[in-house]
């Protein structure tokens, strides 16, 4: 393993060094500064805004009983992947000459349709789970999942450690 780690490290550092030299020699200074600002902003936006937002959303979701939450979370992840791609297209729609055949679609409506499909599939999967739980237990009112009570919220304050 040690040899592999050294080889990977040397290759990696060499490629980073080459890329940095290409960046410094191939890009004029004002552009270079803008790239640096973008690199810093990407980390700050991701780590200080996006991720805490996700955790906050997860904390809100934790109020939903676990059996249903599973399908809600799954649907939200799929819908989120589509939304991330669609949002800039909604913003940019119709700003280019029509001959380019670019961004002509009503992506907002298309995204809504896709989210409805995702919600329907998630809902159907949840319904299937509810029905199969009843069939297995033969007692319709007993919750199938004993772990569906409240759980630790993410993140929780430091306690014993």
């Amino acid at each position: 393993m040690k040899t592999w780690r050294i080889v990977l490290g040397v290759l990696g550092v060499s490629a980073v060094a080459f890329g940095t030299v290409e960046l410094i020699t191939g890009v004029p200074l004002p552009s270079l500064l803008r790239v640096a600002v973008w690199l810093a902003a990407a980390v700050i936006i991701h780590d200080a805004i996006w991720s805490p937002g996700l955790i906050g959303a997860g904390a809100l979701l934790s109020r939903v009983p676990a059996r249903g939450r599973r399908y809600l979370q799954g649907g939200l992840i799929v819908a989120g992947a589509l939304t991330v791609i669609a949002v800039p297209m909604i913003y940019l729609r119709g700003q280019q000459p029509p001959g380019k055949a670019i961004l002509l679609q009503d992506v907002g409506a298309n995204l809504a349709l896709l989210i409805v499909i995702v919600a329907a599939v998630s809902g159907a999967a949840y319904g299937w789970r509810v029905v199969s739980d009843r069939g297995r237990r033969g007692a319709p009112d007993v919750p199938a999942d004993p772990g569906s009570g409240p759980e630790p919220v993410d993140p929780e304050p430091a306690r014993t450690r």
Partner: protein
Amino acid sequence: MDRPVFWPHFSSPVRSTALTARLGRLIGIAIGICFLTGLLSHYQYGPWRWLPEPASPAWGYRLTQGVHVATGMAAIPLVLIKLWSVYPNLFRWPPARSVKHAVERGTVGLLVAATLVQLVTGFANALNWYPFRWDFVPVHWALAWVVAGSVLLHIGVKLPDIVYGLQTRVADGDVLSEIPWNENPVSHSNAGQVPPPATPALSRRDVLTVTGLGLGAVVITTVGQTVKPLEPLGLLAIRQPHRGPQGVPVNRTAEQAQVLTIARDPAWRLLVRGPRPYELSLGQIEARVEHQAWLPIACVEGWSALAHWRGLRLVDLVERAGGNADSVVRVRSLEPAGFNTSEIFGPQLSAALLATHLNGARLDIDHGYPLRLIAPNRAGVLNTKWLSSIEVVS
């Protein structure tokens, strides 16, 4: 050294080294694909004379660049999910144990920064959207090496974690928190025979499943811009090829290229420079149209369309000017600025058409009327439109 009371603590049992290793393998493959296809695309812009671009398969660039853009777009949600899975690592305490550890964390920061900027600006470029105020190509090229190198370095640094993660069943294994798995006393891997941590709602296996479903949904709804049979499913496709003039999109209109008037001038003539220079009028060109080919036009931005082209063989004109199939030929556009010239040689020269007709009709002005270059396995931007001259360089 104990953590301060205010320091965040994570107890998400879904997050796990076993899960992250699998997500990491996926994003590593995606970045590898983007890097290699990106190198192929970069080579299109300046091939060495002794290693010309091949002319076959004609759909080569269509495939590699379609894969490049589709993979890069799918990598955006993927990288967000992967980073979600390791977010607790940001809160390791102490933030740096040693200089070596600080350097390691710095390289992770560089990896995250470069990858996010690379994916976002690549996507923006495919959208013809330039919120970044720099020249896209050199920065994308340089950052590609930074990203690829950072990934290799990251794999080297994390290799013990990766091996542990991949060798552990995803439901078993540690709970990834702000404490490293190999120091975590409640971590499953360290505590002997402990039952797998309970994940009452979404399980780790579920995360992998919905990640696959989400990426699949992104690919299927966007890839219609280059895979014709999937065009009807392209609800999020950036381009809809059939809506372009003559059923083919363009990347630069005649108006944008400022050639609306000069390209329509009936007195237009093609200048052929070489040992025996000559000129051809519009009528002479149109009288010589006797070759045809089905060739894709494939853009660096990831869209493509197969089309039927008619025109003259470039190599015939080159031979009349005193060149031959081994010559290097430079074609120039009427377009006054921008990417208005390209070089062609080797197998592509022998296979190239100077096209006058597209899909059965005279070329639309946006497709390069009166005459354009079209060659197999050649990036769209190099298939120069609104030709003014061809020149036998050597």
